[in-house]
């Protein structure tokens, strides 16, 4: 089992969800985040003073999958999120040692889906 963490542009979330649903990956958890990456931020002014904004709004998606789904999921995320512009985001993959469904107590591969 793997845990995928993806940072994407906020307005790509719908497209990513769509792409995932088409691949039947329907389980995920989403939070907002501020991200600092290649997109080095920009300068603004607030009441005449300069602000360096380098934490941009991002969406963090967390998806636990069984190995067979790993590549499909990654591909779907890329498909939904890619615009080709800096700031498109990153996907991180970690090993997931266990997974438990709270409702039933199921563990492991069965619990993920």
């Amino acid at each position, binding site marked *: 089992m793997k845990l995928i963490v993806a940072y994407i542009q906020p*307005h790509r979330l719908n497209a990513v969800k769509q792409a995932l649903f088409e691949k039947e990956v329907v389980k995920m958890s989403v939070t907002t985040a501020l991200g600092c990456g290649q997109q080095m931020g920009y300068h603004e002014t607030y009441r005449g003073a300069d602000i360096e904004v380098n934490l941009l709004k991002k969406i963090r998606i967390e998806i636990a999958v069984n190995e067979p789904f790993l590549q499909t999921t990654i591909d779907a995320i890329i498909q939904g999120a890619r615009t080709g512009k800096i700031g498109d985001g990153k996907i991180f993959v970690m090993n997931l040692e266990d997974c438990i469904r709270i409702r039933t107590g199921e563990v492991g591969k069965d619990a993920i889906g």
Partner: protein
Amino acid sequence: MIHSHIKFYIAASLPAITPVIAAESGLADLSLRINNTWLLVATAMVFMMHLGFATLEAGLTRSKNTVNILFKNFGVLALGILTYALCGFGVMYPDFIVGEGMEWIGFSGWGIGLPEGYDAANFQTGEYTYWTFFLFQAMFAATCATIVSGAVAERIKVPAFLIFSAIYVAFVYPWLGSWTWGNGWLADRGFHDFAGATVVHSVGGWAALAGVLVLGPRLGKYVNGTVKPMIGHSLPLATIGVFLLWFGWYGFNGGSVFSADPEVLSRVFVMTSLSASAGVVSAMLWSWIVQRKPDLTMMLNGALAGLVGVTAGADVLGVRAAIIIGTVGGILIVICVSGFDKLRVDDPVGALSVHLVNGIWGTLAVGIFSPGHRLGIQLLGVIATGASAFVMAVLIFLVLKYTIGVRVSEEEEMSGLDLGEHGMEAYTGFQIFTTQ
């Protein structure tokens, strides 16, 4: 400050040499004083409607465009007052003497101000001063422009909006208004629009429609034939807005009596209240039936529907008519909000359903319910004013579209106009999903 009033007081009470004449002129003076003061209070109340519009529209749009909508509503108020002073007032009320004191602007006859030797107080009617009349009218003019703001929200470029508003308030609104209120041809034919259901609300609504059509819907609103709701980010703000609008409407309709005449004024207050209340209840019940849950935003728009509707005839209608107008208005809201969506006319705040549809309905209702007025003439006024307003608004928007451009870039629309147009966020620090 403490001294300054004394001279006025003396002026009012001293000339008691020939008591009867004094009493006579004293009565007229006091009558002016009351009516004028009421009209100024009403003006301040209409001012509050602008805060109402600002918060309602901000509440019903997404948080990434909040600074922009506040900016537009606040800016258009200031711009509207100045533009109306510079030129709109002169266009709308050709019989009023204007123009002195502003020749420096470059065009004699424009601007506001009294010629030497004129007395603002007993200027024309003896019920209010020249200045009072101007300011009350200026608040109305700004209202008309503000109506557009909500409908074109979340995608219009700031310069385009400001230029459109300036032109509309300077020329179009006052010109059309003069037909009815400036002793123009509609007035002559007996067209009755008490406080501006057509003259203000529909004229604003037609411009809103023009803007919406020229701009097109927001990105992602209509996808593959389905409507994707773009949910307003703060219903407390929206609710505050409607309460304030209702409050301000007592000034809007009450001030349009143009005197503190007790009979008429109090009727206007009551009819305004009843129609608004009926709009709330009918929108509540109707949305409960149609959507299976009572929809707060529909109720809010329902109140406004009742208010707009009763604006045309609050001075001549009775209890029953007021309640019917509001009730129909509330239902119209629920029908039209989805109806416009079905037609892919994307109006983020329901401005068309409120101001355009109910402005028309209310104006016609005068012809239906008031024995003294004819439906045909009412219809004529609706059509003549509406068609002209729409055509001119479309023209202005099209010119803007092919010159400076009216719509922000896709990228800016996605990340929000607050960053794009203003480089600012409305809610700094809050973690907010801006995924829509």
